[in-house]
């Protein structure tokens, strides 16, 4: 589903963020991306959503080379990728409902369809009662769940999360991860960047470890109690 072939990324200042990274994430797979801060986790996610372009190598999504995607087509690629951010990136002046509806409105769904899908997404993240709230009236965990609802509302085949539990206490973090597991079970390919090793240890998923921009480990986390 997501395939990196010898991907390197050097920023304009000469700073190398990724060095010849290769991996292949299968369809319907869920994996963690880990490493200390500055190891290149965010850069890797940005390359998938074409917020950055690689300096060398090729990235393929579902067999399509991203280097062939022109800037005018980028929005259509992003519609296939649900993105979740540490700082949520919600629109402050819009209600929870409107925030979640945004991707659907952009894609041109009808009013009724938007309503149905947003309500379904709200139910999945258990925020139905707070649909009329503004983001600042919600707790950090709730805001993150709104961000997740927005990412999954148009049922994208790929879900990327950048430190989704960064600001949350461990209990809430597990709740959030359970949500990701649900979507993964529904068929989405999920890639979660996190430095929360404790969290990873509790779940049995493939883990990609970056160190100074290089892929150090790519292994299946084996059973520890959760």
């Amino acid at each position, binding site marked *: 589903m997501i395939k990196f072939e010898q991907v390197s990324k050097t920023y304009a200042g000469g700073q190398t963020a990724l060095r010849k990274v290769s991996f292949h994430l299968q369809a319907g797979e869920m994996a963690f991306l880990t490493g200390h801060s500055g190891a290149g986790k965010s850069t890797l*996610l940005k390359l998938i959503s074409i*917020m950055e372009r690689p300096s060398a190598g090729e990235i393929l*999504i579902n067999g399509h080379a991203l280097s062939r995607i022109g800037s005018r087509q980028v929005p*259509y*690629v992003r519609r296939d990728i649900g993105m979740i951010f540490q700082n949520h990136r919600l629109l402050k002046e819009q209600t929870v409902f409107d925030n979640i509806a*945004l991707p659907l409105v952009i894609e041109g769904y009808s009013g009724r369809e938007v309503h149905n899908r947003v309500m379904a997404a709200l139910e999945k993240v258990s925020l139905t009662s707070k649909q009329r709230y503004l983001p600042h009236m919600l707790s950090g965990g709730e805001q993150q769940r709104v961000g997740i609802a927005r990412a999954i509302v148009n049922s994208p085949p790929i879900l990327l999360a950048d430190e989704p539990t960064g600001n949350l206490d461990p209990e809430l973090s597990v709740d959030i991860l359970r949500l990701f597991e649900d979507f993964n079970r529904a068929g989405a390919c999920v890639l979660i960047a996190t430095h929360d090793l404790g969290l990873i240890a509790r779940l049995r998923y493939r883990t990609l470890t970056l160190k100074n921009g290089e892929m150090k480990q790519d292994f299946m986390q084996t059973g520890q109690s959760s």
Partner: protein
Amino acid sequence: MSLLFKRRSSGATERKLTIWQKITAFFLAHVRQWLASLGGIWRDPIPSLLTVAVLGVSLTLPATLYVIVKNTQSVEDSFQNAAQISLFLKQQSSQQETAEFVRRLQQNHKIEAVQFISASAGLAEFSQSSGFNQALSLLDENPLPDVVLVIPAADYRTASAAQTLLEELESAANVDAGKLDITWLKRLNAIVSLVQSAMSALTLLLCLSVLLIVGNTIRLSIVNRREEIEVQKLVGATNAYIHRPFLYTGLWYGFFGGLIAWLSIEVIRWNLSGAISEIASLYQSDYILIGLSANEMLFLLGISMGLGLAGSYLVVRGQIKQIEPES
């Protein structure tokens, strides 16, 4: 449309719509955004209000000049018959020659009307109106020549054309001298054309300022909404989608600016109408100040909306392209 996943459905393709429904949906979406942009202006009224006010003032100036020129022209038109030519005929020409000359003038296509005043009729009129009755009766013979009053055809009434016509008529054999009182008309024409060219220059400059004002306001509102635009881009909005509300805002600015300009002109006109009618009554005229006609008002609105749209378009394209999401 999904580029990467062939079988994946998306908003527009999922529902099986007829072409007609798609067209309706397209227009509905535009109308929704158009109204939404009005809502945006309403929610944050202060900067919009200031911008619209500046636009209104900028548009009022050329529009007022236009109204002034229009009124001056209508005054000028009503004084056109002042451009009448008096031809003084030679004393020695016979009655027959004079009659023949007047007949030829009547057939001249450059001339609209000819009035012949014989020397005796002229004397009678003069003695009546001047009060020199007694003095004139002392004269042995009539000192006045026969006079022909010529009113040029419409195309020959402007100062220069009337002058040419005068020279042409003066060259006739039995004309002693001709007179055309056009100095004041020349002056008026010169002033009107000065105002007109000043108006075109000013209009150009003020239209440019409208363009820049709208552009700058839109640029600021893009900067203010940078975060929102980034989020929109992150969830897959095309540039065109992000452009639209800003373009519609520019259109609204133009609309309200044009409306303010029209209202200001009406207020100025209403304010002046008392003074004007007083002057007019002193001149025994029923002159009234003309405002903008419905067509001219629509034209004004069209121009201002066009400028609003253009100003916003100039800025929106570059600015939105520059904003790229960072996380």
